[in-house]
């Protein structure tokens, strides 16, 4: 079973997205900020990370840059998620593999995830 780490400071999003992914057969880990994300990555070794850009406390872009710099984690595909339109550019800048604009459609989300977890 593939493992996906969802990082978002919004509890309901964490909850809803987890349910959604679990329903289609993924194992889901959750983290509500950058720090917790690093801990979770070390603990569960996810196959893919869904990373929110704007989080209170830490910037998703910094988290992404750090992960992509670290030889231990740089292979993990990261899909950046944000509520603003420039998400595509931002994702590119910090080395994320893909992006999604909030609010996203389940179909789009699953298509993108499948693309990296085949």
């Amino acid at each position: 079973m593939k493992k996906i780490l969802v990082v978002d400071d919004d509890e309901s999003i964490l909850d809803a997205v987890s349910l959604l992914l679990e329903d289609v057969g993924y194992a889901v880990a959750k983290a509500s900020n950058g720090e917790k994300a690093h801990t979770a990555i070390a603990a569960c070794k996810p196959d893919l990370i869904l990373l929110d850009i704007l989080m209170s406390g830490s910037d998703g872009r910094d988290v992404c840059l750090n992960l992509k710099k670290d030889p231990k984690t740089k292979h993990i595909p990261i899909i950046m998620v944000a509520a603003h339109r420039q998400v595509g550019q931002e994702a590119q800048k910090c080395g994320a593999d893909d992006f999604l604009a909030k609010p996203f459609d389940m179909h789009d989300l699953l298509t993108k995830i499948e693309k990296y977890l085949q």
Partner: protein
Amino acid sequence: MVAGNLPEKELINLIHTQIPALVVVYNIKTGVYTYVNDGITTLLGYTPKDFLEGGITFASSLVHPDDLSRIREQNRKALEKANKSETTTVIETFEYRMRHKNGSWRWLHSDGTVFERDAKGKVLQVMNVSVDITQRKEAEFLAEKKALEGEQRYQAFVRQSNEGIWRFELKKPVAISLSPAKQVAHFFKYAFLAECNDATARMYGYRKREDIEGNMLSAFMVADDPANIDYLKAFIKSGYRLSQVQSHEKDKEGNDKYFENSLVGVIEDGMLIRAWGTQRDITEEKRVKQSLQIRLAQETVVTELGVSALSGKSLKALFQEATERVKEVLRGDYISILEYIPAEKVMVLRAGKGWKKEVGVDKTIVPAGKHSHAGYTLGAKRPVIIQDIAKEKRFSISPPLSTHPATSGVSCIIYGKDTPYGVLGVHTKDYREFTRDDVIFLQSVANLLALTIERKRIEDVLVLGEERLRLALDAGKIGVWDWDMRQNILTWSDKVYELYGVKKEKYPVTFEGFNKLIHTEDRERVKKAIEESLAGKAAYEIEFRIIRDNDKTVRWMYTRGMVFTKKDTAIRMLGATIDITKLRELEKQKDEFLGIASHELKTPVTSLKAYTQVLQNRFAKIKHVESATLLAKMDNQLNKLTSLIADLLDVTKIEKGRIQFSESYFDFNELVEEIREEMQRTTEKHRLTTAFGRSKTVKADRDRIGQVVTNLLANAIKYSPQGENIIIKTWADKDMISVSVQDFGIGIAADKKEKVFERFFREDDPKKVSFPGLGLGLYISSEIIRRHDGNIWVESQKGKGSVFSFSIPIEKQL
């Protein structure tokens, strides 16, 4: 003297009708006659035109050769004398012969008078008044030959002459050794008219010489007139031989008469016993000359007042000057300028001269209507003359006039635009008969005042308007600029200097001076905006940054201007500028707030959507189709909510011109296909088919262009509710790549086609089925395309469907 002010023909002709005189005015520098009256015909048989065209040269050719050099010399000396003293008015008297057109010689007596002097005070024009004295000359000639011709014939001639010829005898001869004063006194006591001709009698108002022969000298001459005493003394001093001297006498009625006399005394044994003489009546000539001079003086005053009126003097100062000049010219004792106050039916003194102390400007009030001279004048609507205040019956006299010892007066209306401004009045202590010229003069001054008052009133309104505008601009913090493009002079209002932090003396402002202040990043944009407005493409309206000269801070300015053209060339731009830095900051805060708000709105929508889709999936799995369908509908509504949030944010940004684009290179067809796939998923009724041409790379905001394609497809789906094919085509040419979206839905009426790109426009179905949405989609789309230098358009037929298309520039391969 005012050049070119020739006396009225009518006045000069008066001289001619009273005494047959030739009056000419000529310019001594050019030798050209500027005036010749009809007397020329009577005296010399020529027409005024002959002289006006021939000038002095022609006139000189008519002078008797024996007289020519003499009068030329006499004239030269006289001018020399007149040029030495500006007070000299009479130049000289000439007697000479001229040839009549019929060939005969006529003796003329001419008086030369200075008519006009040039700026240096030198004589420029001379007026000559000439009379025919042939008869007198012949008489003198005959007198010389008296012995030959005989006394009788001489007497007969003397009787018929038009000139007065006379002989005074002294009842008691006077010793010529006595002092002139004593001799003069003696004359008045003992001289009597022993003999004269009828012409002499007629000059005094009598018919026959018998009527006055025997009268004492004192009966004719005003004894205490210094001019007469001087005349008689001159006669004595000259050795009792005098020509062409004036005397002041009285006629039968007591009227003043002026004569020009030539006389010779007869002396026997050191005693003067008699005097022979001739006299010519110059009363009328003198009167006309005098009135000409007064008229000239009056015209001068009117002209000078006119200059003062235009010089920007205050009305008060002009009134003061006018009263002074009127007093001087009309020799008035009390001058008044009264303003009529219609609401109170009174007149207020605005300027005065000669009144007692208690009469005050802006204080003294005169009743209107029939209770004052001024009030009556207003009602009469014409100048009103008072001969004698004591006998005035037309109106009553009120203070201040009634409290002053005035006798005569004249009042003229100072006309106004709708109602008269007031009245200009002159009053004299002594009895005075105001002449027509006096009244004309006073009315001229009044008219001048009227024009000036009206002009000032208009100026005041303009100044007030300008002042108001200035206040409004100051209060509104608006700076105004004016760019004269031909001279490249940029005129700034004080406010602009303040806005740009520039010291007023620092810049003689040109466009370049202004350009230096503009933030380097904005210079190109400002230049482009100006060029576009000059080309007539758009109004000049731009927001730009300047670096303030004094504190080097960056300030945002908003400016708007308009272009003035002359013969299709832009010559001037005029505009206004305000500092919008604060507004910009507030808007930035608002944008940030909206950004945060939309983000915050999107977060719960995201989770709502996720929950909905989870549920939908779960129901689908357990084949609870109805619930799954309901949740799909819910998801659909959430999508609408999402797009509404996005639209609102976009519109706010578009309105402020602050929609941000992040350009990138992308393949156009690829984007369209991506959107097509996405949109196909939202509908089962429609089939989205493609007919793509060759693709091109474009440099644009991919998301925004995608948003437009999405919008066109969403509309095509929305407005073809029956479900049909939707055809998406792309094609490219040299510069542009285009896409069109064709539906087969309700279509758009021809008259509404242009409106679809406006804000909040929505097309309604004929069956009144309304279509949801804010009506912002196409408005936002058209703005996005416009900002990408592209075009968006629609072709449609009501009931048959629509084709929406747009094109954007292709990235040029360099």
